[in-house]
């Protein structure tokens, strides 16, 4: 299918005897924002680095933009953008100078449909760094630096953008600012994005689809709403009868409560029906798989 940007089948990764990925399958379609969500050590970074072509896999089939990233050449490289969490490079360069320079690498890969690269002025405006155009990169704040990294990640107008833990180490304000930037980007460009995060709220906020990775396997796959419904279907009913407290988990809270009243009538006191938050469920699920 041509609308698949990335396709992963039976992907396995072993380091010695330690199996990090135990055969995962997923696909990313054009225009989708997909989040790989999971606790540290779940294999998110390993997965994204295999897709970026930075890591060899142990087994399985991976196709990104029609090619195997492990063997893809420079023309393929021009079609993907990468934003990592730990860039500190080019500290002596000035912001605009670096954007102009790096943009130059993509000019020869422009096509009739995609004009490459993205103009530096327009990009600086998009990421809100126009005032810093002449600043030495080493003097940028953490948040500004990350926004520059996004600008560099998209300077070649990538057909697929990788964001690896994009807000790790951010304070809440910088995190919100970053989320707004990603929204602006996806609204503007129809960009396809694959991001990793260990923050459920971030995945909910940014992604069209969330893949939960735990213990080297994908344990859930769906839109944030679907996941909320599926994972939190089970509600908890709490009540007291004659001073005795009861708790009962159920998937049919209404039916259960009716039966409860039918049985005890007004003796039922302190009735409470609550759905666990998506976060509670996510944590429970992850714990279960990590054992």
């Amino acid at each position: 299918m041509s609308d698949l940007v990335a396709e992963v089948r039976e992907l396995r990764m072993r380091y010695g005897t330690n199996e990090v990925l135990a055969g995962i399958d997923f696909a990313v379609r054009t225009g989708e924002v997909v989040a790989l969500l999971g606790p540290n050590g779940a294999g998110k970074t390993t997965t994204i680095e295999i897709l970026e072509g930075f890591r060899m896999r142990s087994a399985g089939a991976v196709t990104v933009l029609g090619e195997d990233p492990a063997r893809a050449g420079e023309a393929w490289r021009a079609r993907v953008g990468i934003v990592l969490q730990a860039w500190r490079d080019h500290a002596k360069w000035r912001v605009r100078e670096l954007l102009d320079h790096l943009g130059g690498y993509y000019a020869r890969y422009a096509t009739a449909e995609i004009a490459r690269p993205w103009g530096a002025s327009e990009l600086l405006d998009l990421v809100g760094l126009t005032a810093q155009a002449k600043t030495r990169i080493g003097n940028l704040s953490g948040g500004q630096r990350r926004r520059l990294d996004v600008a560099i990640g998209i300077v070649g107008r990538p057909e697929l953008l990788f964001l690896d833990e994009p807000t790790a180490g951010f304070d809440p304000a910088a995190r919100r600012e970053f989320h707004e930037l990603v929204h602006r980007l996806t609204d503007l460009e129809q960009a396809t994005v694959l991001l990793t995060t260990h923050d459920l709220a971030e995945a909910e906020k940014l992604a069209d689809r969330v893949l939960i990775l735990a213990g080297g396997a994908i344990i859930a796959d769906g839109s944030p709403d679907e996941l909320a419904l599926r994972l939190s279907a089970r509600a908890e009913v709490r009540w007291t009868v004659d001073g005795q407290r009861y708790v009962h988990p159920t998937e049919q809270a209404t039916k259960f409560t009716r039966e409860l009243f039918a049985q005890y009538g007004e003796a039922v006191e302190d009735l409470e029906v609550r759905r666990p938050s998506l976060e509670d469920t996510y944590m429970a699920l992850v714990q279960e798989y990590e054992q």
Partner: protein
Amino acid sequence: MTVTPVRLGLARGGIELRQTLTYWPDLVQVMFIPAAGILTLFLMRGHHVPGTTFSLGSLTLPGFIGMSFAMGGMLGVTGLLAMDREDGTLLRAKATPGGMTAYMTGKIIYSAAPTVLGLVLTIILGLAAFPGVTVHWLTLIWVTAIGLLATVPLGIVLGSVLPNPRYIPLVLLPVGGLTAISGIFYPITHLAGWLQAIGQVFPVYWLGLGFRAALLPGSLSSVELNGSWRLPYVLLVLVLWSAAGLAAAPSVLRRMARRESGSRVAARRERAMLRAT
């Protein structure tokens, strides 16, 4: 309009060179060795080569240029590579189409240019202040060219092999030792035979000899081993080292770069932070 990676690399080298030349802490770092050397030469001005009337400073000057090729041309690029790996510059090059070719081109320009600049400055100083310095242009040009080819690729190999910048002193020491037995500051003819033999395996000695041939009157060759400049050997040894460096550099660099990924750069950063605290 297509701009090739090599052209982009030339642009990179130019930009980084300009950054260094216009930022005084970097400028001090780059110019420190040439300045120290020129000062040393200056202090030797009044002395003569024992048994002759030839200025000792003039005799040392070419050897000093040879050393600057080993230090600047080779170790310069070693350090740059180790640092660029640590801060993610190399990974950035890997993530950019044509980035590795441009990166290497840029680094070669960036490390060769100050070396050549130092060479030119030292020769100007030599002609102005040191009697007896005689420039044989043809020899100078080929020794410079083969000297760069023999040192920069070796520096790339060393920089790819070093795990991180804190290992740089480990290479600095042996190169310093080689310089000491390479007849640059102390005539190799006065050293024990086995030290002479070791010195003549490595390019530092031959660089010094080549530059002495290029910058001193022919009569002075009598103080060298065999009483000659041995230019065919200079060419042969430096070509062999160039060939070894050029053959090894791309694959060693590729192997090192292949291992680079975001998590490796992040892990190194964390270790560096731990050491810092």
